């Protein structure tokens, strides 16, 4: 199993929750002190750097108009990582291509990163969470269709090497497509797509890309992987290789169980500091009318907010404790959902500083990983 470290690079110094309506879209940026933001960025970059030295692969993502993530443009951060780290894959998970106006520019940015990193890049495409709609002025209707058209266009741009090609699709138009540089990896970097549902995983499986699912716990992760297998079997023979499946969880490894739980408490800032207005959480068209009806009727499962650390661990969202405890939790998760090849470690959140983050990552690399070696398929040596 491959391990990937990521942090959302939050700006955690927020006023009391009762003083603002929504941490997404509307939170006034005067609440951000640029000096403090720069200090946090120093820490985040140091964490990625340390993670690479410990043998982790690296993952970056982006969000807009929110204190939960200051990483507003993934290629910038990834470009820095290509220079300050010497090993490990660099995964962008991902490019919110349903919200980007110019997919050809995304293709070009990714190709440049691939060259800069001499082929260490993995490129994720995501539809984006609902809060991104307003923050990017993107239409919430038809997003999946737009995402897949953007994907088709990006692939065309990556793989055309004989002069300009043309695209006049439903959502995008671009004449004279001829990106420079072209990707370092041929025909193009590995592609990842995230989804949280069984139906969303099918088209990913059909294309044979890596599917990533975030904090979906045992039950829903099983469904996502099942959807992937359904899609895979439509277009391919044989079993799905485990390196096509990825899961992201919150992880903190302490010296003791107690220390691990204390770290976990800090990680859950990500879950608790997500106060959002309903109009940003559920824009019309983002999900089917039937799902919105079920939400009005209170028939959809509630989120993770309000769950105790123990409940989060039980669901398979959080992995926390001593090295032995965390190893057992990961083992149990794998037993429940089946073998998967990529564990995306959300190892920092909220007010957790870099020393704490790196201490946990070090235990994960040096203590947890060896305990799991026999149970799990071998990945790159950590």
């Amino acid at each position, binding site marked *: 199993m491959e391990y990937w470290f990521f942090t959302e690079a939050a700006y955690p110094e927020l006023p009391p929750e009762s003083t603002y309506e929504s941490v997404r879209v509307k939170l006034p940026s005067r609440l951000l002190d640029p000096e403090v933001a720069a200090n946090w960025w120093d820490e985040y970059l140091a964490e990625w750097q340390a993670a690479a030295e410990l043998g982790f692969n690296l993952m970056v993502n982006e969000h807009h108009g929110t204190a939960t993530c200051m990483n507003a443009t993934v290629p910038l951060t990834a470009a820095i990582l290509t220079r300050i780290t010497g090993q490990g894959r660099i995964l962008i998970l991902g490019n919110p291509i349903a919200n980007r106006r110019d997919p050809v520019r995304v293709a070009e940015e990714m190709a440049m990163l691939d060259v800069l990193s001499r082929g260490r890049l993995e490129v994720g495409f995501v539809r984006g969470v609902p809060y991104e709609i*307003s923050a990017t002025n993107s239409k919430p*209707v038809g997003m999946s269709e737009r995402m897949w058209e953007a994907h088709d266009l990006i692939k065309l741009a990556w793989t055309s090497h004989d002069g300009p090609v043309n695209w006049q699709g439903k959502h995008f138009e671009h004449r004279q497509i001829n990106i420079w540089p072209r990707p370092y990896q041929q025909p193009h970097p590995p592609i990842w797509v995230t989804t949280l549902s069984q139906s969303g995983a099918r088209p990913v499986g059909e294309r044979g890309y890596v599917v990533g699912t975030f904090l979906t716990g045992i039950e829903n992760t099983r469904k996502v992987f099942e959807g992937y297998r359904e899609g895979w079997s439509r277009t391919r023979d044989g079993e799905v290789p485990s390196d096509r499946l990825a899961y992201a969880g919150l992880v903190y490894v302490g010296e003791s169980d107690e220390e691990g739980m204390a770290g976990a408490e800090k990680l859950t800032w990500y879950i608790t500091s997500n106060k959002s207005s309903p*109009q940003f959480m559920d824009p*019309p068209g983002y999900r089917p009318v039937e799902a919105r*009806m079920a939400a*009005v009727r209170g028939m959809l499962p509630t989120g993770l907010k309000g769950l105790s650390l123990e409940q989060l661990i039980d669901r398979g969202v959080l992995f926390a404790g001593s090295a032995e405890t965390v190893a057992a939790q990961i083992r149990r998760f794998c037993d429940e959902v089946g073998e998967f090849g990529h564990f995306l470690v959300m190892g920092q959140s909220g007010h957790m500083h870099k020393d704490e983050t790196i201490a946990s990552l070090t235990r994960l690399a040096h203590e947890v990983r060896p305990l799991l070696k026999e149970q799990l398929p071998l990945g790159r040596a950590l």
Partner: protein
Amino acid sequence: MSTAIANVKTVSYLGSPLAVESWEIGSADPPMLVLHGGNGFDPEARFVQDLARSRRVIGVSHPGWGESQRPEWLDTVSDLAHFYLELLESENLDDVTVLGHSTGGWIAAEMAVWRPQRIGRLVLVDPVGIRVGGPADRDIVDIFAISREERIKLGFHDPSLAGPPLAEMDDEKLRRQLQADEMMALYYWEPYMCNPKLRRRLAAIQTPCQLIWGRHDGVAPLDYGRAYAESLGHARLHVVEEAAHCPQIERPEEFCRIVEAFIAETSAPR
């Protein structure tokens, strides 16, 4: 009260069959076509019933709303205007009073810009569709960025007239409302609630036009209405006191009086 039973019939639009949900209330010609705003057509609305006493009122769910099908490519207000112009042709309707509320008023204005021949007169009720302010001005409130409660507060002088909250709707009403929300996002998202060219084109409209505006409209404020009237040139603007974005709902008697007087004045003596 006239009966108002929805009828889903298949019409031919650009050579392809399309299921369209429509209501016909009352019987006398010339007819009135009511173009609903974002929330959909309500055949039980008092103003519809009252206006249907002396004419045939035709209400149609725009493609994508209610039981009306939407061809996959149909996704702009110009598309809706074209759809209704073709409907006037295929139904052979003449001297039609086109009454449009909010985004329905926008559709009506687009129709009159392009092909006014079958339109006898326009009644535009708190219409949107034009750009008035500069780039950093917000002409029309961003309905997608506010809660449903805020929307009601801005849209109604008397919020108790806004109908039940989502949680109290039966399944059928709830489904229609959420479907309507999705269609609003599809058709009106960008350019937001307007066609940037429409304001200039309004000057081309020769069709008699009555504008009706709620004094307290918080969605598209009265100043926006004044700019609409000015751009139309010949249109009269009637301001309904104690009403906001939906004067036809909040003050149906006054509303119908103004509409009846306008129709009488703009109709040839029989």
